[in-house]
């Protein structure tokens, strides 16, 4: 396996970005972008201009697509570095890697995604009282709780721009757990916040569903939450 990594780098928030190309080879056919970056960190790599490659600043944790830390932009699309197999680019010979574009860059591939989390607080995603235990397994709550808060959906969402009224799918996914679980009398505030910060701004293009690296069924979550928060009189669609 042999591929050229064209990495968009940036020393710090103030510096101008630059491109660094590194030839990477591995005996492991399954090698992921995250592991390749790890190998590069270990040292001994030169870029195509013959310069020593400094460790590439980035975030990662689980290396198995379960924590959302390593989200980057790969050939123009957001993806998890640990879920990106380099063999998929071998034929083309190169792959472009850069930081997520909707968040401020701290350095190299590391971006500040704080807005994702502050939105959750602004939406008021919590329960004030003990939640009743359902009769059977709650598949909607399960699906909603799987969200990694990685931000890939925000990256592709045509309507999301950090700091504006519309919060995007990451917030909606988290909200949909409690919209499902809270008794109607206790979810008025959350319903209002959901309508204001999600429902009213979502164009339903479902770009979020197609990109979500966790494969979350964002459409079902949306249908369920919209029914709870907006279309109450239609009754709620339950997962099969």
């Amino acid at each position, binding site marked *: 396996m042999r591929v050229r990594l064209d990495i968009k780098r940036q020393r710090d928030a103030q510096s101008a970005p630059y491109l660094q190309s590194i030839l990477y080879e591995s005996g492991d056919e*399954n090698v992921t972008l995250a592991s390749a970056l*790890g190998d590069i960190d270990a040292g001994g790599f030169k870029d195509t201009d013959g310069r020593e490659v400094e460790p590439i600043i980035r975030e990662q944790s689980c290396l*198995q697509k379960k924590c959302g830390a390593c989200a980057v932009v790969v050939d123009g699309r957001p993806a998890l570095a640990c879920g990106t197999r380099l063999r998929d680019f071998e034929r083309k010979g190169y792959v472009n890697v850069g930081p997520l574009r909707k968040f401020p860059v701290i350095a190299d591939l590391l971006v500040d995604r704080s807005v994702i989390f502050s939105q959750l607080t602004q939406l008021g*995603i919590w329960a004030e009282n003990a939640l009743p*235990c359902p009769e059977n*397994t*709650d598949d909607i709550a399960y699906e909603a*709780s799987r969200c990694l808060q990685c931000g890939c959906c925000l990256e592709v969402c045509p309507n999301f721009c950090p700091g504006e009224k519309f919060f995007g799918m990451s917030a909606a996914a988290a909200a949909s757990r409690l919209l499902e679980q809270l008794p109607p009398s206790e979810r008025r505030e959350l319903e209002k916040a959901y309508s204001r910060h999600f429902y009213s701004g979502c164009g339903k293009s479902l770009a979020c569903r197609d990109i979500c690296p966790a494969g979350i069924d964002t459409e079902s979550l949306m249908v369920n939450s919209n029914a709870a928060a907006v279309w109450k009189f239609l009754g709620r669609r339950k997962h099969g």
Partner: protein
Amino acid sequence: MDGVIIIGAGLSGLSAALTLAEHGKRCILVSAQPSERAQSVLAEGGINAAADTMGEGDSTALHYEDTMKGGVYLADPNAVEGLTENAPMILKKLTELGVPFNISGGRPVLRNFGGQKKKRTAYAKSSTGKMIMSALTDAVRRYEAKGIVTRYPHHIFMGLIMSRKKCTGAVFRDSYSGKQLMFHGRVIVCCGGMNGFFPEKTTGTTANTGDVQAQLFALGTEFANLEMIQYHPTTIGISGKRCLVTEAARGEGGRLYIMRGGERWYFMEEKYPELKNLMPRDVVAREMFSVRRSADTEGEVMLDMTGLSAEVWQKRLPDLRCEIKEQLGIDPADVPVPVREGIHYFMGGIYVDEHHRTSVVGLYAAGECACQYHGANRLGGNSMLGAIYGGRTAAEDILGSKDTVQGGEPVITEQTAASVKLVREISDILSSALGIVRSEDEISAALVRLDGLRCGGGLDKARLSLARAMLMSALERRESRGAHFREDYSKPDEAMRRTLIARCKDGVTELYFRELPERRAQHEGKA
């Protein structure tokens, strides 16, 4: 006083924060990464509680017995008593927070797990950790909004503030801005296991670098049972790490075998007719290691999950099936999966008493970084429980006592960036001696190699010193107990059924055994 300082926002850190916040006590929740990235989200199989929803006549007393026996009687009996007694209450609380457990008839369904004779493990399909983390994160958010909990989610531990050998606060570095922050108050360390010492060899996250532990060790904090490292029997090698195949796969009917004389040999079922494939992890891992080495067997140990029903795959293990399909390109419902042992859990760690107090006044530890509950071997499903209960217990001790010391001076370790090369070298050396089967020769050779490594000062030196203490502890425990198997001392030695403490004093590591606490008469309450 800024509040209680919690280092780490996984299960134990969140549990501590929630307990403090519910009592109106301010806390500062610091972590290198947000909760969503903590290792706790990886937990798959479930959490133990003798809630007996399956009508098997389970009890907290049986949970206690299984935990003590699984840990080969090296755990603090009073702490384990508290853990197992409180488990049903913790499960109830988690349900009230909305964790979407597998539920039937309004009660959590429990599954079989290793080392337990009853169905005792509550689960949410095969993503239990993620489900609990999402619910706990939401619960803590409520108090963030009220200003009771303040998060610092990209901040790295740099050192403690000390006043006459007592801990009065901690110092952090904002990894975005590089700025240094100092907070005053009592400290609960919840920083996870020492996975960072074993890159590519663990099922956990190397973002749990072990750097907090290294720094606390260098500061003279007592550590315990550092030789007790759990290998999970069923892991698969994927790019950059070992990936866990949850014990629930065996709990739901998965079987281990190896080829012998052209036939499948179900060695666990033959050797252990009672618990079969669900023996405690140390036993399964050692058996796998030995059958693979045996002259008459061929190939890898295989985990056969082809007998699991479509319903089990869909309702109980859906994420596991997707993961194996994606990582190995095979469907475990159709073909057996080759598995090997991988480093999975650190039973040893920062020494704590049953209230989670460390040897330093004002400093607490909980979760995987602390040595509590699991003795020489942890039972599956007991660590999430231990993390949640431990965080809570530390918080309760703080709520029940007063901050007496204030002021103090920061004691900061020079933050030499972990050189990936050095980390890999340390990992190779440790792995050569701290495998499933150990011996004096191997450990001594590793110590010599470790001493030959060149490193600067600061954090690198602290890392080396903790690595050295792990090897020394493995050498010192001249017996076999749980995860620590010495081929030169292959039996447990009752005289060594004691906690092995490692401490760094004036730059030199000293080791000593400490007696285990006596078990109090039941329901006498905590001292």
